[in-house]
Each structure stands twice: as C-alpha cells, then as structure tokens.
C-alpha cells in the first residue's frame, strides 16, 4: 500500500526515534507518528499532563478527561503517570523531552520556524508550541513541503511570526529530510518524486546534498 504524503512523513519520523526516547507529538501530521512507532520503549508525553500516552480508545471507553494536547481522547500505557501543567512544562523546558515533533507553516534556512500564527488572522493562540520549541532536546518539524497554493514552506527568511530563536534539528517532508547548518540547508535524505536539482529549483535557493542515512 502506498502511503499518502502525510503518512509517509509520519513514518519517516517514527524511524528516527530511539530506544528510551520521551517524545511529544504536536497537532496534525505529528499525531500520525504514533501509529508507526514500533519500539515499545518510546514514551509519549502530552503537555496537558501525562507521560505514557497510548492509542485512542474505542468509542465505548472514552473518558473525556483523559485527552491529549489536541483535546482528543487517549488511553494510557502501563507505566504512565499524570501531573499538573507546571510540572509538565518543567519536563519540557528542563530538557526531559528527547524529541518534539511539530507541525509548521514555515522553516527558514537556519532552522527557525513559524508554527503558531496563521496568515491574516489575529494571533490569539499559542498553546505549548513555544515551550516545545525552546525546551525539547531535539525538535523535528513535520510538514508537507508546499502550501496549498504551491509555495515552499522552506524559505530563506520567515515571513510569518517566529516561534522562538531556538533552531530546529530536522525538517521532514514528503520529498526529503532537511537539516540546517549555519544558514545552509542540507538534504540528508531524498525519497520523493523530485530529484535534488528539481527540489532546489522548486524551493528557489541553493541546497546542499549530503546523504547521511
């Protein structure tokens, strides 16, 4: 079965996760990562106060107080525990979350992201996005490479509001996996229908190819 773009990105990220990792999955594509994690020693944290998040319940076993950060019902794994919001964000800011997987609207060539303000709308919601950007040991951004109108989300300079000065570690798309080095965008892996040269042309500025997988 061929995976659609969103599922492909999720699967690629699941493969990056290591034994023992504490992982926080954001809304959207990041949420899909959960179903591709095969390692039982990966622990999912949700910032509303839970480490050890399990899959969604069947509809007869919904507890609407047992939810993830997108307010969807979840279950818990055997070694799970609950805590309050101050402790939960202490876990995030304190570097105890190994990987945060976040959606984004833009990523610049340094790895700075804009993932909280929607263009042409008042900025009235941020949630835990900035805490995760600032605090997680490693930040992986998960997004399709182009917006609906076809413009690349990978940009030379952010046009939307930054989510924080801390740079992300990877940008995983349906075409390639990008990493960042002093303003240079490195293609670490390429697996979509575009060649490196086509990718570079679509994105509109020079990239560097350095397959490390």
């Amino acid at each position, binding site marked *: 079965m061929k995976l659609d773009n969103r599922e492909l990105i999720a699967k690629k990220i699941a493969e990056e996760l290591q034994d023992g990792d504490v992982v926080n999955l954001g809304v959207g594509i990041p949420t899909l990562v959960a179903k591709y994690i095969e390692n039982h020693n990966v622990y999912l944290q949700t910032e509303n106060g839970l480490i050890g998040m399990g899959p969604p319940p069947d509809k007869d076993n919904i507890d609407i107080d*047992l939810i993830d950060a997108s307010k969807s019902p979840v279950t818990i794994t055997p070694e799970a525990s609950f805590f309050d919001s101050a402790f939960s*964000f202490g876990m995030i800011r304190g570097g105890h979350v190994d990987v945060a997987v976040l959606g984004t609207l833009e990523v610049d060539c340094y790895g700075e992201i804009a993932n909280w303000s929607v263009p042409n709308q008042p900025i*009235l919601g941020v949630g835990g996005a900035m805490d995760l950007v*600032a605090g997680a040991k490693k930040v992986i951004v998960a997004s399709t490479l182009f917006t609906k109108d076809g413009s690349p989300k990978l940009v030379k300079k952010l046009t939307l509001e930054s989510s*924080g000065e801390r740079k992300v570690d990877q940008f995983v798309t349906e075409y390639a996996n990008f990493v960042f080095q002093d303003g240079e965008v490195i293609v670490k892996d390429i697996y979509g229908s575009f060649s490196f040269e086509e990718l570079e042309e679509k994105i509109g500025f020079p990239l560097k190819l350095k397959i490390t997988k």
Partner: protein
Amino acid sequence: MKKLRKPEELSTLFEDSMRLLVGGFGISGTPLTVLDALAKFEAGNYEVVSNNLGDNGKGLHKVFMAGKIDKAIGSFFTINKEAIEAWSKGELKIELLPQGTLAEAIRCGGAGIGGFYTPTALGTKLAEGKEVREIDGVRYLFEKAIKGDIALIKADKADKAGNLVYHSTARNFNPMMATAAKIVIAEVDEIVEIGEISPEEIVTPHIYVDYIVKSKYVKQGGSYIEAR
C-alpha cells in the same frame, strides 16, 4: 461539612473587576457548575486567567457570553470565535502567554516568587517589551508571577476537610491555581470521609481550599451533561 456550599451561595464573594483564576484545559478540569452560577451573579468586568475561554457554550464561554469578562489572560483563544470577534472590536482585552509560562507564572504567584526567567518565547512577538537576560550562558525572558482574587478550580474528590485529588489530565492548571488566589472554590465530583485519601496522595492540602461545591455535571461518552 463546613466548607460545602450550594453554587448560588457564593454570589457575595464576587465583586466587579476581580481577577479570577479558572482551571481547565479545553473544558476538561473546568468547574462547570460554579461557572454556570457565575454567569448569573450580579458582579462582572472580570479579568480572567485561564488557558482558554471555555468551549461550545460551556464553562467560561458562558460567562463571556453573559458579558462579564473584560480581559482574558491565557494561551489559546483561537477556538473561541466570539472572543476573537469581541477582541477585534476592542471589547475584550487579550494577553497571550505560552502555556508553560502561564502555568509557571501561576505556580510562582502561589509560592511567593515574584518572577522568573524562562527560555520560552525568546525572539518572538510575545517577548516584545520584556527583559532578556543571559544566565550562565543561556538567554532567558523575564516573566512576572500571576495571582488572583478568587480561584475556581475542579478536582475529582475532596475529603471533608477539603483535601483534593484530581482525575487524569483534568488535573492541568488546577493545583497551581489553588495556591495563587485569596479565595479558592473547588468543584468536585465526590466528597469522601477524612482518611479515605492517603496523606501521600493528596495533591492540594485542605488549607488551600475555602469552599467546596458538588458538581452537577456527569460525563457521558464524549461530553459533560448536566445531570445532578
């Protein structure tokens, strides 16, 4: 039980322009019964500190629709359409804080800490006008503690002294808010005898809780319904 009140008995506690701390994430862990009463009380012009402004006609959304909120301090109002509309007309002030900064500021307010330095939101629009300081080679943003006049929180169980425990992710902001206001009102699903909650397990000691209200809501499938 000394602290137990009917929600309507609380009306005299509330005064115009008070700052209220209201627990909950979405509406999970929100004192729905107390907020229903609050929407009907005479006082108003509140400044509300809460992650969001309720949802779908429940919780703070009801209080907002009753015209009682002048300002909201929280992390996520995007889902509250009417609030965004009121904000764009200048009828509602909104102060946006990252969720972790909000949680930490309330904890500090309750713990006698005046302010703190967080790495969150550095280099963003939310850092505008705020002090930046480097400590041991890391850059941080200064944030002030948050306190309130009345905290409206939701717990799972209270014992008859007022000791509280919470239920799963409905714990969220409630334990910090219980420490950070002059008066604390806790809505609970169940009241048990003293001793039924172990001293190791109690999350909020009774000394933080002034009034207890029994919740009128029960959970059914994917929603809360008024049933008691």
